[in-house]
């Protein structure tokens, strides 16, 4: 597959966007979506390598990751609701108790 590099570049860009989003955005839901973006960037890499190497292992991994991501979405959203009940906000600026 001659255009493996193209997939990897797209995947890297997606991952970087996700990372920057996680680090810079304040809204917990947006951060959550950025994490999904990072996961999917990884998925893209897996699929690209799977196709490139002619193995199915990578695609099986992708299915697992999507399952875990769905579970994670459920837990994450539950956490956010719980947090919102306490603080009437979902901005991560209000989550600042993790210090000395």
């Amino acid at each position, binding site marked *: 597959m001659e255009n493996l590099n193209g997939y990897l570049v797209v995947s890297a860009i997606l991952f970087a966007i996700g990372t920057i989003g996680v680090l*810079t955005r304040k809204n917990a839901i947006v951060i959550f979506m950025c994490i999904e973006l990072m996961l999917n960037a990884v998925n893209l890499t897996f699929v690209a390598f799977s196709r490139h190497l002619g193995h199915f292992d990578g695609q099986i991994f992708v299915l697992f990751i999507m399952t875990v991501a769905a579970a994670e979405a459920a837990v994450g959203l539950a956490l956010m609701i719980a947090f919102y009940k306490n603080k009437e906000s979902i901005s991560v600026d209000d989550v600042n108790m993790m210090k000395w």
Partner: protein
Amino acid sequence: MFDNVWLIPLFPLIGFLINGFFGKKIKNEAVIGGIGTLMIFMSFIVSCGILLQMIGLPPEQRVFEKVLFPWIHSGNFKADMAFLVDPLSAVMIMVVTGVGSLIHLYSIGYMHGEEGFYRFFAYLNLFCMSMLLLVLGNNMLVMFIGWEGVGLCSYLLIGYYFHKKSAGDAAKKAFVMNRVGDFGFLIGLFTLYWWFGSNHNIWTINFTEIKAASHLLPYGGVVTVATLCFFVGATGKSAQIPLFTWLPDAMEGPTPVSALIHAATMVTAGVYMIGRMSFVFIKSPETMMVIAVVGAATAIFAATIGTAQNDIKRVLAYSTVSQLGFMFLAMGVGAFTAGIFHLMTHAFFKACLFLGSGSVIHSMHHALHKIHSHDDAQDMRNMGGLRSAMPITFITFLVSTIAISGIPGFSGFFSKDEILWQAFANPYHGGLNIVLWGVGALAACFTAFYMFRLVFMTFFGECRINAKAKSYLHESPLVITIPLMVLGFLAAVGGYIGLPKLIGDMFGGIPNYFEHWLEPVFALANQYSAQYAHHGAHPSHAFEWSLMGLSVVIALIGIGIAFTMYVQNKDLPGKFTATFPALHRAVYNKWYIDELYDFIFVNPCKAFGQFLWKGFDVIVVDGVVNGVANVVMGFSGIFRYIQSGYIYNYAFSMALGVVAILGYYIFK
């Protein structure tokens, strides 16, 4: 009977345990006092049994050792819990249990109604046990337990009225000064043990074994070092120069304690120890001379202070120091028998004097209490004319005073005169002898003076307390007067078992029983001393008679001066004080020895303590501890800002970390 020697210290121990643990619950004074007295009296009975059995044996068989149980066996070192019964320890246990029983009995009356009655009897029993261990121990370590035990009990009993600051201070002073002496004792013990072990492979602290090996000891040298260390121990326990200042302060304790511990028994431990190791001490002529000089100096020094004190117990305390000086003088001139003899007679008359003064104080206190007066019940200036109110106390007191003054026919005369004679005629100290005798005779003169001053001020003349209080003065109850009568009797006749040969010969050759009794104990020492003794021309009998007469005259002079100053012409003391104000002030303030010691030892120690506290502890120790904490706090104060608490900061550093690690693996 010898086999039962372990019962002697056991009975007081039982008494201590019962009164110590259950006394507070028992409450009943008769039961508590009864138990305490009964226990020591049972020891007395066992002691009598041992004495009787020993009298029945020929002199060379009068030694018995009883091993109770092995105590410390470690390598070469061996110390058993074992007792040594010989004529010397027999004399000591008789004195301790005999006088001890009487004083226990007396205490029932004297301590009546005191808070902590049970505590008093528990301590008194514990003291007796320790003292009996001290005199019965067959090795230096058992002796040392007793040595420390009596020191502890002395501390506890001096501080009996612990709510009084002066009593607490006096107790601490006694304890600390005794510790200085104990240190010397231990060093002496180690020196002797080390020398025998390293030079002759005899690793022992057992008196009998040391005695058997004592011929190996050199004259002087290491023996001088060891014996001087032991003597330092003796000066602490027996209140000799330089460690004597605790004893007068120890009068803060109840009077029976002064009689038992600070007159009859504990303070004689140093004398006993020298007697027990006479065969070691005699091998060092230098130590013998030091002992004689210190003894004579203490005798005269304490006697001078005694002449100016107004507290009845303090006069007796200085008298005790002075009489102990006589005992050490005897030891130092090689007259061990005379020293032990004086120890015994002194125990009788001084215990009687202390108990008599206690009886007076008891009565004075009662009378002053009745009229709600706060005058000092112990100050002789408040007394006077007590003779008619307290006849039994007066007579026993007078008999003991005559005995201590050295009037012929009474016990003190025989023992003191023997010491003075030996100080003069001993073959060891050459030209020093005449000085020793002179100082001793002068001290005897002072003794007669201050003792009769005490009697005249207390029992004769006008009663100086309030007339209303006078009617409340009364003789003490029987439980107090019986011990007084027994001790007074002993003070009068106790000397006849040790008649000097000169007098014995006059009455058809009555032997000196006491000397014969102790002969086996001190025979070896006398044998060793022949090495350096230089016998000159033996003084004639006429000369001995005249010296004896002279010492009687000296005593009579002392009594005469006291009579003139305190009965006939009562203005004289005041005039004397006015003429020599500096001298009187110096004597009254005990030659400023306490102040001197404060200046030389106590204050520098305090200053050093202050320095260690404020200089070393606060700055260095606390500085290091707080410094470490401050450094840690400083750094954490900076680094804590890394922990912002915001998730994205943590996430960022995580990402940075991942990048760094990956970067490392990619570009390495």
